[in-house]
């Protein structure tokens, strides 16, 4: 640890809290393991029982960690009346914030093949909210696109221009598209910093589905100004704008249980918190000096781009002596949930690989703070827990199978002279299961208890007490049903990551429902596995079969559950019924969400108009804008785009691959030549026909 960190005023508090936290987890886990040893017939002697224990210990510890984290959060919230930890930046600097001048700050929005209408709606709400604070002059906004499909990035560009017009932000709202999108999102942000980072003291990173209030953004900048050692400040984004039943359930979860967990996490991490990749502010110079991520040079999974870069960047900036804070008290930070379980699992596939890559930083990166190594470990085990649970079930089945087959070994320990009689203690099994259930559900019950007893001012945001309880029970039922489905999927992802199956980097689906065919294909392996496992269990022992039912039933129902929960109609119906109501839905969220919903987003081109490339070449204004924005090529590049322009002029667009054809937009002369030719072309010319089709299509409703 470097000397700067050694003089950390928060170190003592952090160490006391973390050791207490570890002690509680270890004590509870020791009791759990002791109970498990009594449940096992040979009390852990044979290899299979040792394997069961080896899988049980980390699983139980992980569950206990989550529970104690929430308990910490509950304590902090009650101790400080819900205002956040006394050590937090807001608690220390809150009083002086209004008088702090703002420094130049960039708001960066990296995007890659996202829903353009949604992205720019969120950005518009955020910018309008910033302008409403009267502090807009301190900010510049950057849309950093890595989109490759011209049908997407041309729409993004049109949306950007419209937003510049609407907000009169020409010259302060920028759109940059990378032509070579190396290193995914990390490369995108780094590219921005290399070109413009030095202009801005801070930068705030948004996600494609982020919305932040101007007040939250201004508060972040002021907190950075107040605490010069702060390298990053992360806000806690809450979910909003959910429509499907699944997304609304997740939204309910973050609003009801989220505060306890985030408060507990912030209290434990203090100034060594993690960065979640968005809705956070970063000190630009510190980030540029210390957080460059090299491509990994290891083998398999540990080679190439770091996928989950945010945790690593937080650990690097901390290593350099800066502080990283998770500020739970900043309201007005929002993001969206994937609309369905399948979409969540697709995202988890990328995250699981990214988190497993952290093994390299956990074990081999020098100078990383212990708190960040623990954060890496927690992130890794969040996914590794699934195959471990899977193995636990497998080993348990083998143990039962051995007994069912009458394969009872009275001398499981080869070196012992005394027989070891197998013993069954159903009472211990019941105690162990009960304690596990309490550990699992205590955080949720505490969150509910806190809301109903201590924090009743938040209650109207969740509708009536009756509906809140109904939603609570429903959510718990679904979380039990979804857990085995997630477990199986995560197990597969971990295996795929380890054998290094490539992960496609793609924009997240944020809006569509899941069809039956898609759901059955995705969940068929789980359904087959559930049938096989339950069949084997039934043939071995009826009692064991009953134990398998909660898991196999949810795997069997995975497809209908996924389809059902992805339905917007169900989400809308339950919203009308008041189930899973949340403050934003009740109109009690931040005003920025009201702005978000109220924004009028007219279509950027008529419904029946041709694709964006054709539209850009033919539309009078779009073509001129394309020409104005064209890169100034020279030499061979210029010649290539001129040749391409000539080919497009004579053949039209249909015979040329879209991405190749889009390169003509690099040549302003070619763009205007095609545009002028098309509008004056005779009707039997390919462009004459295109213009006639275009003009007719605009009229068709």
């Amino acid at each position: 640890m470097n000397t700067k960190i050694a003089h950390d005023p928060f170190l003592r508090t952090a160490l006391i809290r973390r050791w207490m936290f570890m002690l509680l987890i270890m004590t509870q886990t020791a009791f759990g393991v002791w109970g498990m040893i009594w449940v096992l017939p040979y009390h852990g002697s044979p290899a299979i029982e040792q394997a069961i224990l080896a899988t049980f210990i980390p699983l139980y510890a992980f569950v206990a960690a989550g529970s104690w984290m929430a308990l910490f959060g509950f304590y902090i919230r009650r101790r400080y009346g819900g205002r956040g930890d006394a050590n937090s930046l807001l608690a220390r600097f809150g009083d002086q914030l209004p008088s702090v001048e703002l420094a130049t700050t960039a708001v960066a929005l990296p995007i890659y093949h996202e829903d353009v209408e949604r992205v720019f709606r969120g950005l518009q709400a955020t910018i309008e909210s910033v302008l409403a604070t009267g502090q807009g002059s301190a900010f510049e906004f950057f849309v950093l696109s890595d989109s490759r499909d011209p049908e997407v990035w041309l729409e993004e560009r049109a949306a950007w221009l419209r937003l510049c017009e609407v907000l009169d932000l020409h010259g302060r709202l920028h759109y940059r598209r990378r032509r070579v999108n190396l290193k995914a999102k990390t490369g995108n942000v780094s590219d921005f910093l290399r070109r413009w980072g030095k202009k801005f003291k801070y930068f705030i990173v948004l996600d494609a589905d982020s919305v932040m209030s101007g007040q939250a953004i201004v508060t972040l900048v002021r907190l950075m100004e107040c605490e010069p050692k702060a390298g990053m400040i992360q806000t806690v984004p809450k979910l909003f704008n959910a429509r499907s039943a699944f997304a609304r359930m997740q939204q309910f979860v973050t609003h009801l249980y989220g505060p306890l967990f985030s408060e507990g996490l912030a209290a434990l991490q203090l100034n060594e918190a993690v960065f979640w990749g968005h809705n956070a502010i970063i000190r630009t110079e510190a980030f540029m000096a210390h957080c460059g991520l090299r491509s990994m040079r290891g083998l398999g999974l540990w080679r190439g781009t770091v996928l989950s870069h945010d945790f690593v960047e937080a650990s690097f900036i901390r290593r350099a002596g800066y502080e990283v804070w998770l500020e739970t008290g900043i309201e007005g930070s929002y993001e969206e949930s994937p609309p369905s379980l399948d979409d969540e699992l697709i995202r988890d596939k990328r995250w699981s690989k990214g988190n497993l890559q952290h093994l390299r930083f956990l074990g081999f990166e020098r100078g990383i703070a212990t708190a960040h190594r623990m954060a890496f470990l927690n992130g890794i085990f969040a996914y590794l827990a699934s195959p471990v649970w899977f193995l636990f079930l497998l080993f348990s089945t083998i143990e039962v199978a051995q007994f069912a087959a009458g394969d009872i070994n009275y001398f499981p320990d080869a070196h012992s002279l005394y027989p070891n009689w197998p013993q069954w203690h159903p009472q211990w099994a019941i105690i162990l299961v009960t304690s596990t259930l309490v550990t699992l559900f205590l955080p949720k019950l505490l969150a509910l208890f806190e809301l109903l007893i201590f924090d009743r001012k938040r209650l109207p945001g969740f509708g009536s007490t009756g509906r809140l309880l109904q939603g609570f029970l429903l959510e718990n039922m679904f979380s039990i049903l979804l857990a085995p489905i997630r477990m199986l999927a995560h197990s597969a992802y971990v295996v795929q990551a380890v054998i290094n199956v490539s992960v496609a980097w793609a924009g997240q689906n944020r809006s569509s429902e899941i069809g039956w065919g898609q759901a059955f294909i995705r969940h068929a392996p789980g359904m087959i596995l559930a049938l096989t496992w339950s069949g084997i269990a039934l043939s071995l022992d009826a009692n064991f079969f009953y134990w398998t039912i909660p898991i196999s039933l949810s795997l069997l129902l995975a497809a209908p559950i996924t389809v059902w929960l992805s339905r917007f109609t169900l989400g809308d119906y339950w919203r009308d019924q008041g189930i899973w109501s949340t403050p934003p839905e009740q109109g009690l969220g931040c005003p920025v969400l009201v702005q978000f919903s109220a924004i009028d987003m007219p279509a950027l081109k008529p419904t029946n108009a041709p694709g964006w490339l054709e539209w850009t070449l033919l539309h009078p204004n779009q073509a001129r804008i394309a020409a104005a924005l064209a890169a100034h090529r020279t030499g061979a590049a210029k010649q290539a785009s001129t040749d391409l322009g000539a080919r497009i002029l004579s053949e039209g667009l249909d015979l040329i691959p879209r991405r190749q054809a889009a390169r003509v937009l690099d040549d302003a002369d070619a763009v205007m030549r095609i545009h002028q030719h098309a509008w004056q072309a005779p009707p039997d010319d390919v462009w004459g026909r295109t213009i006639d089709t275009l003009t007719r299509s605009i009229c068709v409703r």
Partner: protein
Amino acid sequence: MSDITPETYSDRIQSPDDIVQITAAGLTCQYPNAICDQLRWLQRRVFYQFMQTGCPTIDLEADLSIERNQADLTERLAVPVPVLRTMPVIVRGSVRHRHKAGDLVIPPMVSE
């Protein structure tokens, strides 16, 4: 009609008798190409103006002149490419990966 000139793409001028013909396949109606041409140029000019300005001006009688529409369109096509303020001036920097802690970037505290 005075607008029917060799500039249009009609192969020939059709008489009213050409519009409706009784053929072996039955009654066929050939829309006069001349009108098609007039409408085409009107359509192009009007839609260009519509997309350019959001509000076309149409005088149906006057605007059926092909030359007039072509001239108007040519004028509109000649509108120059605007100069757009897009990205700020590039200030080159680098994003580095440093193992050792550097000096903290500590700005002066802001006084009230």
